[in-house]
């Protein structure tokens, strides 16, 4: 076991995947010489060379579009989009091509492709560097979306995502890049199905907090801070598909669910979860599913982001409301 930051764990995941499989390439803006603006790809150029670590032109549609072509050729590109807010120029390629080529070709084209996307706020950045666009992609059939919350998961899940034959959008909670945690660098990636399993990260009896990526730590902190209620925390890990068995089992145990994410609540992935749980656990729920998330406004200037993002207080306030039913 090594103790690594999430950024380093991701880098180790990439180099392990590249060592395991010569078809794996890394591509994106500044991923080579610089090692990425977050240094996730640091060292890869030196180890694997320019053919496998590609500093691309500054054009996101081009990154994804050429990655699609490389995947058609049998490569397994791992394409980095530098920040969440810059994924939109590639939206067409992702939704109309990446998500559909396996289907369109009735399975004859392999679309083994990972899109790494640093997401979320809390780093005091300028506009377009703090967004959480997961709901757009979760509404796009053909994609799989996963997001780790710890360095250990970051290492394993990235390797599984790269090994997976389907296109995977890999969301990296950028404000947790510097969190440290244990990583077993010697472990094999394990069964690919594990990639789509949610995990109960804290057992509790009164209510379930469902969260992912950057909000897992926040929810754990909230649960620990709550001396009155015994809160269960579930890390969704996979956003598409959702691991409904694990989620529903938790809600059935606790009877109450609060979904927490950074994206605006309106139209966010919490809506899908709430709608599904409300239907599936109709008789078990003791309160409506509540959602805590960003407000329905564009991500605010950095000096307001703490108010925008869910924090302990906002989460526990929602728990209060859930318990009051």
């Amino acid at each position, binding site marked *: 076991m090594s103790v690594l930051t999430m950024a380093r764990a991701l880098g180790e995941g990439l180099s392990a995947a590249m060592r395991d499989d010569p078809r794996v*390439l890394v591509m994106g803006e500044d991923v080579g010489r610089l090692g990425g603006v977050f240094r996730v790809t640091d060292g890869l150029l030196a180890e694997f060379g320019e*053919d496998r670590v590609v500093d*691309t*032109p500054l*054009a996101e*549609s*081009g990154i*994804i*579009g*050429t*990655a*699609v*072509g*490389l*995947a*058609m*050729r*049998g*490569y397994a*590109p791992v394409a980095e989009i530098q920040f969440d807010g810059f994924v939109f*120029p590639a939206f*067409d*390629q992702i939704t*109309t*091509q990446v998500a*559909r*080529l*396996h*289907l*369109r*070709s*009735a*399975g*004859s*084209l*392999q*679309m083994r492709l990972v899109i790494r996307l640093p997401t979320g706020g809390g780093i005091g950045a300028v506009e377009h560097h703090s967004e959480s666009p997961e709901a757009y992609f979760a509404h796009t*059939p*053909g994609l*799989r979306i996963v997001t780790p919350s710890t360095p250990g998961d970051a290492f394993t899940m990235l390797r599984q995502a790269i090994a*997976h*034959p*389907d296109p995977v959008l890999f969301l990296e909670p950028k404000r947790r890049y510097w969190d440290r945690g244990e990583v077993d660098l010697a472990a094999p990636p394990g069964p*690919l*199905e594990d990639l*789509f399993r949610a995990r109960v990260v804290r057992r509790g009896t009164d209510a379930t907090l469902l969260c992912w990526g950057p909000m897992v730590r926040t929810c754990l902190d909230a649960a620990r801070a709550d001396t009155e209620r015994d809160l269960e925390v579930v890390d969704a890990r996979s956003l*598409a*598909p*959702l691991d*409904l068995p694990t989620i529903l089992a938790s809600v059935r145990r606790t009877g109450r669910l609060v979904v927490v994410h950074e994206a605006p609540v309106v139209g966010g992935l919490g809506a899908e979860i709430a709608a599904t749980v409300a239907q599936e656990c109709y008789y078990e729920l003791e309160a409506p599913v509540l959602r805590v998330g960003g407000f329905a406004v564009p991500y605010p200037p950095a000096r307001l982001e703490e108010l925008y993002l869910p924090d302990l207080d906002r989460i526990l306030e929602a728990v209060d409301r859930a318990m009051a039913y």
Partner: protein
Amino acid sequence: MSPAGSPDLVQLLTPEGVLVEHHEHVLALTDDQWRSRYRDLVLVRRLDTEATALQRQGELGLWAPCLGQEAAQVGAARATRPTDRIFPTYREHGMAHVRGVDPLALLALFRGTTLGGWDPAEHGLSLYTIVIGDQTLHAVGYAMGIQRDGTDEAVLVCFGDGASSQGDVAEAFVYAAVNDAPVVFFCQNNQWAISEPLQRQTRIPLYQRAAGYGFPGVRVDGNDVLAVEAVVRWALERARAGHGPTLVEAFTYRMGAHTTSDDPTRYRTTAQGEAWRLKDPIERVRAHIARTGIADDAFLAQVGAEAEDLAVAMRTGCRALPDPQPAAMFDHVYATRHPQVEREREWLTAYLAGFERAGG
């Protein structure tokens, strides 16, 4: 825009069927090849007119005719090696023919029984791409893969005059240029993007776009199968030799409607069409091979008969195309098991079974 016959246009076979020399581009076809090209052109035209007819008869939802562009498509496709990959738009029926795709697969796509229709690897032909321009980036990425594999394959990617305005096409130029990717950008400038004439997309001839990205651009008479084959062959060899991309603009004309849903009388004169009819891509080949004795009447008749057989096979085959099974929409969305897809597949199956029980 320079008309056919102007100095910046590569032409090797005039509309009258006379071979002419070009200072740079040369290609000699054997008699067999000439007959083969003629056969290609005739079969493609027959395929295309039959599909248009099938659409009129309600058998297809839509058809995008390639009428008038047969030489551009056949010439370019015949310039490739079988191992080269072609990336078409949605109108390259001529390339599909050359690459041995069953015409029924094209009909299936436009009938609405499939979203694709063939295995790209089997035919070296990517699937039709409907979102304008997207395939140009795929082609460049594929060519980057070839570079990594170290083979001498190359890529031919099609797009239209309208598509030249799309950001993705420009990005494809950038990626291809900086990577010296072995790709030929093959623009069929058929003068129209639905109702918009070329002047809505560019101030200058399209082949000159390449100069802005640092690679050569050539305009070729798109109705001259020989010139197209010569220029595309040259461009593919450049690609194989590591010189990177070339833009080939095939100057041609969309003789038919944009698609069977379109009504070109609303936006263009018949005079323009008449002028282009005199430059027909098939007539000039027929004139050449007949005059030079490469083909006799028996050969021409045999090709005509083959075309009729093809049409009959298309008619019969099209009507017999089965609708997909309901649950087929869930197949292949993912390469591996997906619980959401399974849930919905099960739901639909049970739901439809309910009707059968109720009905039966």
